[in-house]
């Protein structure tokens, strides 16, 4: 089929688009962020989360102590000029333990003794769960049929084991380490993400642009990852953010039960557990401050996610 010359004297004039000024990258990112700024909820959440990320990142310069320095002469003391938040039962500065504890959760993942990667356990737990969950969700949702059934049953199996039991099993089998916490988080987080992605996929695959891709004979992988996934990113991102909150909360619970990182790691949950014994004795600080930390961080993440979801739903 050959395209011939256009007929001279074209009768129908060309359409020019409405004057939308060319947006540069910077402007577009700013535009995206402005959605954030429009929501007060998101701003409050962001502020809290940013605070914790900041203190975790700059921990070494924000305190003169290390989280392991013990001062036998000053256990369970309240806030004072030398220790802003007080000390725990071994005389360690609580503030230092808090911010170093935030590091492992949010900022750094130690894989071996001397090797670490950026992003904490909570972050990595959710990221890996995202990767696996998105893959399974897309596969089951787009393909349907027997493959969908298999995927759903795998997810069911993953959801069937209670999280604490799961952690116990993994810790017992693989040992207590940050990496294993990430593995456990992945198993816990994948089914929820997979289901979300699957239901988004089921909806998006009815659209005509997917039909159009199919009539072009595009491969299923192309359709899933290039055509469907970018249109599902909104809800997925919001969900992932919420999951980081859940992960932190879960780790707090596990640490409290003694299943978190081994001592002397500054694990917030185990700090609460240790400090619990001294509350009635008049030194609630060792239990109080880590609890506040967990609470604020989780609430901050939830607010952020909520605010994002509100704003993106506004135009539905």
């Amino acid at each position, binding site marked *: *089929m*050959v*395209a*011939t010359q*256009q*007929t001279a*004297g074209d*009768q*129908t*004039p*060309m*359409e*020019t*688009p*409405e004057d*939308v000024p*060319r947006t540069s990258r910077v402007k577009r990112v700013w535009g995206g962020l402005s959605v954030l700024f429009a929501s007060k909820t998101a701003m409050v959440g962001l502020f809290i989360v940013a605070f914790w990320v900041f203190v975790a990142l700059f921990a070494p310069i924000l305190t003169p102590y290390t989280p392991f320095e013990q001062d036998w002469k000053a256990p369970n003391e309240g806030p004072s000029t030398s220790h802003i938040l007080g000390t725990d039962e071994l005389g360690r500065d609580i503030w230092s333990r808090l911010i170093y504890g935030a590091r492992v959760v949010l900022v750094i993942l130690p894989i071996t003794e001397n090797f670490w990667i950026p992003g904490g356990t909570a972050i990595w737990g959710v990221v890996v769960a995202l990767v696996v969950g998105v893959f399974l969700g897309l596969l089951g949702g787009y393909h349907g049929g027997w493959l969908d059934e298999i995927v759903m049953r795998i997810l069911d199996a993953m959801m069937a084991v209670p999280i604490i039991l799961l952690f116990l099993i993994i810790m017992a089998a693989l040992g207590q380490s940050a990496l294993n916490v990430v593995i456990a988080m992945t198993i816990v987080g994948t089914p929820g993400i997979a289901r979300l992605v699957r239901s988004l996929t089921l909806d998006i695959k009815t*659209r*005509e*642009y997917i*039909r*159009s891709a*199919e*009539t*072009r*004979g*595009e491969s299923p992988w192309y359709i899933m990852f290039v*055509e469907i996934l*970018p*249109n599902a990113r909104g809800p997925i991102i919001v969900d992932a953010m919420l999951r980081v909150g859940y992960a932190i909360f879960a780790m707090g619970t596990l640490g409290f039960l003694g299943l978190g990182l081994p001592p002397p790691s500054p694990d917030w949950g185990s700090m609460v557990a240790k400090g619990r014994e001294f509350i009635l004795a008049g030194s609630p600080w060792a239990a109080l401050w880590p609890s506040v930390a967990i609470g604020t961080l989780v609430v901050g993440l939830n607010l952020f996610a909520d605010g994002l979801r509100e704003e993106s739903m506004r135009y539905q």
Partner: protein
Amino acid sequence: MSDSPEKDAHAPVIELENLAIAYETRKGDVLAVRNINFSVREGETMGLVGESGCGKSTIAFGIVNFLGPNGKIIDGSVRFQGQELVGRSEAELKKLRGDRIAMVYQDPMQALNPAVRLGEQLTEVLTHHTDMTEKQAWERSVEMLKRVYMPDAGDVMNRYPHQISGGQQQRVVIAMAMLNNPALLIMDEPTTALDVTVEAAVLDLIEDLKNDFNTANIFITHNLGVVARVSDHMCVMYAGELVERGTVEEIFKLPCHPYTRGLLASVPKLGESKIESILTPIRGRVPPPAKRPRDACVFAPRCDYATDDCVKEKPSLIPVSEGHVARCIYAEEIESRPRTSKRKPREALLQGHEETGEHESILDLENLKVYYPQESQSVASLFGLGEKKYVKAVDDVSLHLEKGRTLGVVGESGCGKSTLVKGLIGLEQVTDGDLEFMGFDINDTVSERDTRLIKEMQMVFQNPDSTLNPSYSVGKQIARPIRRFKTVPKDQVKGEVLKLLRAVRLSAPYYDRLPRQLSGGEKQRVGIARALASRPDLIICDEPVSALDVSVQAAVINLLLEIQQTFGSSMIFIAHDLSVVRFFSDDIAVMYLGQVVEVGPADAIYEPPYHPYTEALLSAVPIPDPEAEQKELRLSGNVPSALNPPSGCRFHTRCPRRKEMLPDGGEICKREVPPWQVSEKGHRIFCHIPLEELKKVDPVIHSKAA
């Protein structure tokens, strides 16, 4: 405009004076409609015509104060039976609504509560507003259902909405509206969601009720044909303003506002074809509410007659004749005014295809079947023992398409045209039959076909809002097929995309735009460019213009025509709008319940001999010409289920012609599958009635205009 409280027999039931409605938004008040002036008397039907976004529904909601939390009437008055409605309290308006003002909406499924039986919904209207007892209300409801020609009225009262068809649901909604004998009935696009033949029956009903009940009626629609049928007077709306008002006959005969003229020129009238006539679209787009000028004519930027005077101040309604006004400073002389736009008017094709000896076939369907297996509910089927049931969506279809020609496929919902096309393009598995494309057998689904074949058959889809991926720019989406099928070398891809954009009349800046920045018509053009990108020999268009406004439809149809001429593509064009199909196609196939009942050259289909179904379809299409005489042949009953189609001729259960035109009263139609009767030039009719009898039938349409 009488101010006396007693009801004057000829006083208007409703009067709108200088009505202005605005919506509150984050950026301030946005004016949706302004300067609305019209009145409706008892027994009159006022048609409110306009395209999407013109504000016609806003006016209706304004009258009954349904504007929502952010809508408000900011100026003017609405007088109902002499009493001012603006400024009334919620309680007072509530009393007025169900009792003396009633409203019928577009989608009956949304107007009826799916969880409540119809009887209860009907009686509720009565018991809420009057002090009838349940029993009395029930009897009155049954009476009303009979009045709207509902078969089995008593039984229907006990059914749920999903157990009756769309047309019947709309009748129930109309019955509900009429139960309290309202003084004013507002109908907001009541037939838009219905099939043509069902629509015709509902319009018949509306006319019927008009005569009996003497209700004042405001009828909102975008379909000029429907307005011509149902209304006495009409108001044309554009961008929130009333631009023309008058009787239906006058406006159709002599439209005085350039917008009205543009609308009428962009709609194909049944019987016209691309050979001898043209569609003239209105260029540009409707300005959004925030960008409408207060001191100039709102239509000026798109007007072919605009001059500098038009933007100096807002034109007022100028009387052209008795009762006919138009908001244009040139209204009285519009016929003789010269066009000021540089655009040359289009010329018709003026020549059909030459009859060459060689007819190269590009697509051949032989006994094509596409069945969907029906999920059986019985326990036996769990074990694989149950009887397998199939929805016979396409049952034994044979068609033939020649190179360079356009085949139109018409039919109502459920006839199988969409499934046929899906089977052609490979989105559905063909159950049986032969499918030959360019000499190759293509019984397989898309994933099994050769890439070289895939690229030669591409599709344009129906819904412009979902035809483009919202995450990618226009340029990327058009480039994808080019890259995939390697139509041009990598470095020339962008150039090719720009060329395609030019071919669909979109300028270069569209390359970087995202779909949400485009209008419906523009998105559809991008969809067409994308289909063209692989330079296919066959383009399948699945209702490409059904979801677009009337004036935009014309632009897209013209575009498809141009593409056909320039690229020489063959096309299959599916639509339910018979006027559009007639205009655009060379050959037409009419489908009913999975089968083709008539196929032939376009002009042959629209003249006798007709298949009885085609005759009924043509009799049902609303024609935008109040003077045209159209036959009123109506089909009874509903479309049978495709799970269990009728024996013999599938149409026999509803055929209006078989009893009178066959010697045995049409018994043969029940027993035997009809033969194909061949008329001239490849025109075939699938019917038992002999051709000579069919030829004697009167043509469906007589136009009074010479």
